Every structure is written in C-alpha cells, then in structure tokens.
C-alpha cells in the first residue's frame, strides 16, 4: 500500500523502482471505457485501476461523469465501449484476462483465482459472482422492509441455495435454519458495526438520513463484496458523522480486506483516507495518483476552479484554499 506521505508530489509518470499497488495488484481495471447517450459523451476513453485493498477516490466537478462510471462498473448501464476487468486473487492474472477476453466468456475461474468481465455480465451476477457491491447517491433502501430484512435480502443467494429454492424454507429444513441463523448473525454483526442494532426491526424508511447512509453500506457489505463502490457516502452528513464514516471505511478495509472505490465531494474525506485518487473532468481523466500528487496538480486545480489557462493558477490564496481541504472533515474544502 502506498501511503500519502510516501510519494512525491510530482509523480506524473510511474516512478521507477516504486511500483504502485494499483498498477501491480489491481482488483478492478477499467480500460478505454466510453459511455455515450445519443450524442452526449458522458465518459470518454477512461482507463484507471483500483488497487486491491486500497481506498480509491473518484473525484471531479459536477457532471464530470463519475456516477456514470459507477453505473457502468456495477451493471446499471451497458458501456458503449471498453472493458472492465474484476479480479479475485492477487496480481494482474494476465493469463486469465486474456483467456476470458479471447474466449468471449463472461468469467473464468481457476482455483481461487477468477477474472470477470463486468460489461458482459447481467446486473445480478455482478453482485453474486464478481462480488461488486454499491451504494447510491440518492439512497435506495427497501423503505417498506425492516432494517434487518434489508440486510437479509442482500444475502438472498446464499439463503436461496440453502432453502432449495424456498421449498426448504417453508418446510423448515435444518439446513435452511442454520443458513438463516448465520445470515441473521452476519446482519447483526454489521448492524452493530454501523450502530443500527437498536433499529433492527424498524422500517428502513423511518431511519434518519445519516443512519440510512450507514445502513446502505451495511447492506452492501452483507453481499461480501471484494469491491465496495460508494457514491458520495458523506453527502449530507455532519462533521461528526463524516468522521465516523471514515472510521467505518477504514475498518472495512482493515478487517475485511475489501477494496473501496468512492465518489466524494467532501475533500476532507478524500484526502484523509484515500490511497489513490482519480480525477475526472468532462468524462476524461485529468489526473491519477496519490492524494498529495493530485492535490497539487494544476489541471485539477483548474478543473475545480474553472480556470481556462493552467498558468493562471499561481495564486497563493487558491493553493492555500485547496490545501486546507486536506485537513480533517468539518472544514469545508471550498471546492465542492
């Protein structure tokens, strides 16, 4: 893992001798992703890697195409062009990637290593097999179901299998009871982690906003993802909640080894917890590197502040403004 302090601020090209985690051990590779809606090009020829075990932030001004990238990765949209490779197992797995691409397959598995081409998979398999989970900017809980049930739906496939397509569930087979108990325990574990255990039997729609956000993360984690995609998890949270979120994400990464890809406007969150930052503007990648590198990139500053010419950015106040964004949450980054 590359820590924020380790790399120099200038690394536009890969530094020799210091291969970065996302280049050598990516969990997800997005290659030449293009998404067009009619004449509108929302994402244009975008390539980036998400390192295994990293927290990767996807940032950019409004309308830069961040959510579109998420939608392509998680099967919400079928991308117009491009390849999205999801890997289970360390390293680049180049042999498997070539095999699956050339063979016209959706996925290939060899022992505990597997490669999935997400753009070829139907949406429910992306969660079930490729193990990519996501949350939404506008929260999408099953509002009429209880908090606990929301987490049980996320374990649908395990339970469906254990209940022999529900028949066993009706008859109360021991095998199903055991699976149901395990699912409930996992749900309780995540409810405790997200401090929602007291609300387990309330309808999800009755929770306050901050709790709903955490519930969405808990629900996504119940699918046991290898990659967790969070669309603006800190939006609408107060500074204290935002701090809690950081802690939760770091816990998820440390304890469960889940790689995290997040879209975020709160620069406090981004700069504090990200190992890797990818910056989009008008559907094109303009910077890619660790937090320090990106923060000082003139193109990024220009994109956020809307400056035509990069040279104009040599204003001390502006630079100072951006660098305060690196401080803990609670201070407005001034760039949202």
């Amino acid at each position, binding site marked *: 893992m590359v820590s924020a302090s380790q790399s120099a601020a200038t690394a536009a090209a890969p530094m020799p001798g210091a291969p970065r985690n996302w280049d050598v051990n990516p969990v997800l590779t997005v290659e030449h992703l293009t998404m067009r809606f009619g004449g509108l090009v929302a994402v244009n020829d975008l390539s980036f890697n998400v390192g295994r075990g990293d927290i990767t932030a996807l940032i950019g001004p409004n309308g830069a195409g961040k959510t579109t990238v998420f939608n392509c990765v*998680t*099967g*919400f949209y079928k991308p117009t062009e491009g390849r999205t490779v999801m890997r289970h197992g360390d390293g680049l797995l180049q042999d498997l990637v070539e095999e699956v691409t050339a063979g016209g397959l959706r996925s290939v598995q060899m022992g505990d290593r597997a490669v999935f081409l997400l753009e070829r998979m*139907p*949406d*429910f*398999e*992306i*969660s*079930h097999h490729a193990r990519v*989970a*996501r949350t*939404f900017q506008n929260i*999408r809980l*099953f*509002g*009429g*179901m209880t908090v606990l*049930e929301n987490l*049980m*739906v*996320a374990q*649908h*496939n395990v*339970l*469906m299998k254990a*209940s022999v*397509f*529900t028949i066993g*569930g*009706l008859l109360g087979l021991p095998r199903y009871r055991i699976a149901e108990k395990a699912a409930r325990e996992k749900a309780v574990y995540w409810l405790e982690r997200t401090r929602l255990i007291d609300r387990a039997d309330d309808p999800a729609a009755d929770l306050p906003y901050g709790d709903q956000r955490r519930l969405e993360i808990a*629900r996504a984690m119940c*699918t046991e993802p290898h990659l967790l995609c969070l669309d603006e998890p800190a939006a609408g949270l107060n500074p204290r909640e935002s701090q809690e979120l950081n802690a939760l994400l770091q816990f998820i990464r440390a304890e469960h080894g889940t790689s995290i890809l997040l879209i975020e406007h709160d620069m406090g969150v981004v700069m504090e917890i990200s190992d890797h930052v990818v910056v989009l503007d008008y559907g094109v990648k303009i910077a890619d590197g660790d937090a320090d590198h990106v923060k000082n990139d003139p193109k990024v500053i220009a994109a956020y502040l809307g400056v035509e010419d990069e040279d104009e950015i040599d204003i001390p106040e502006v630079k100072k403004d951006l660098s305060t964004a690196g401080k803990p949450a609670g201070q407005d980054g001034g760039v949202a």
Partner: protein
Amino acid sequence: MEYFVQQLINGLTLGSIYGLIAIGYTMVYGIIGMINFAHGDIFMVGSFIALATFLILTTVFGFVFLPVILLIVLIVAMLFTSAWGWTVERLAYRPLRGSFRLAPLITAIGMSIVLQNFVQVTQGARNKPIPPQIQGGVTIMEGVTENGPIAVQLSYMQMIIIVTTLVLMIGFTLLINRTPLGRAQRACEQDRKMAALLGVNVDRTISLTFVMGAALASVAGLMFLLLYGVIDFYIGFLAGVKAFTAAVLGGIGSLPGAMLGGLLIGLIEVFWSGYFTIEYKDVAAFSILAIVLIFLPSGLLGKPEVEKV
C-alpha cells in the same frame, strides 16, 4: 337468522374462490405494476386441466377412491397451470418489459383472447359437466320461517373449499414473510434494479410470481369445477373481472387485501341475490367497488402511494 347464516356460508365459499384468483392479480401488480388480464383465463385453463385429469383418472385408469383422485388432480392442475402461467409471462410479457406502459396491458388482453380461443377450439364451445362428486354435509342449524322449516347446511364441498383456502393462505403468508423468495419478491416490488444489484435474479423472481399466481388460480379452478359441476371456455372472463375487482377493493398490491376483497365480493353477491334480485348481483358488487374507491382510493388495505419529495 338461519337464512342469513346459510347465505354467509355460501358467500364465504364463493369469496374464497375469488380471493384465490385475486392473489394472482395483486402479486403481479405488486411486482411489475401491470394488470395481468390473462389471469382469469389461466384460472379457466386450470379448471380445464383439472377436468381432463379427473376424466383420465376415472375413465382410463379406473380410479375410484375420491380423495386420492382429488389429490392427484390438484397436484397435476397446479403443475400444468403453473407451466401455463410461466409460459405466458415468458412469451408475452418479458420481451415487453421496459416498453411503454400500455404495451403489457394490451398483450395481456391479447393473451386472454388467445387462451379463450385456444380452449374453445381444442375443447369445444359446449359446457363440460361432471357429475357431482362430493355430496352431503352437516346441518348446523334448524329453524322455522314463515315459508316453512329451514335447515342451514354446510356441505362437505364448502368445508373443503374454505379449509383449503385457509391452508393455502397460511402457507402463502409464510412464504412471503419467511422465505428468501418472499423477501426477494417484496424487495423487487420496491426497487427492482436495486434488488438486482444485491444479487437477486429479478427475471426469475418475476417468473416465480406468475407461477405462484397460476398455481393458486388452478386450485380455484378445481374448486369451481367441483362446486358448480360445469365449466366452459368463457368462465375465466367473469371470474377474472370479479377477482380483479376484489383485488382493487382490497387494495391492489396487498395480499391480505386480495383475500379480504375476494370474501367481500363473494358475500355482497350472495347476499344481494339472497335478499334482493339475482339479476343485479354483479351491479351490486361493482357499485360497492365504485363507492369504496371514491372514499378509499387505494382500497381497503392498500397503502396510499406517498411521493417523497
């Protein structure tokens, strides 16, 4: 009093049949928001399958023990009718999912006509009678009215219908509330796309919803056959409209609502014919529907749609 109790029993019996069909309407509406107008005809197909199985068992194989015959007929009818329900969804509705709103409605009407005509052509347009199978009953009350003595009869047939419906309803409620499939169905009702992103196979869940609806309709079809002893290719239309009315009355999308609506429509019809005129029983049922919907637009047990802003 005795007369009232007798009508109550008759009404509950009829209402049970309506309720079983109504569940199919309400479930499909709940999950994909379309009115499956072919559902009444699935019920009709179910009763024809029951009839055919019954005749094959009694005449070809020479079965005589009635409970065994009925059990086999029930299972065969449920299996084959489910297959019909599944096929209708697969052929006529799934390709149009995501199309404009009226498209599935129009295909559903088309499917209804197809099924009716298919049965008419293959089975003939004439009534198909079977001799009454389950006779007798118990007298639970006796009394005297101005027209002479009256005995309240609860026939075995009525008992079977009410008990079967009760058992199915309990099983079904458990399925929806306690099993992963039921949870997936409820999740799909609220947000199909999100359910898919959590690994739920939405297409399969929808198919299974049609299968369950068809299975319940086939039970209703068998009961109708045994209760009235005569079926034809057109019974699906009126029964379908009545059951649809029941689903709307109870609050479309709500399972207990469908059952309650079914019972109410059955009771209204029977009481109206018992106390007023039999010719206007349908008018009575539909008028009550209209009145209820004026004051409770989302039905008796339906949840009003709250638009979140």
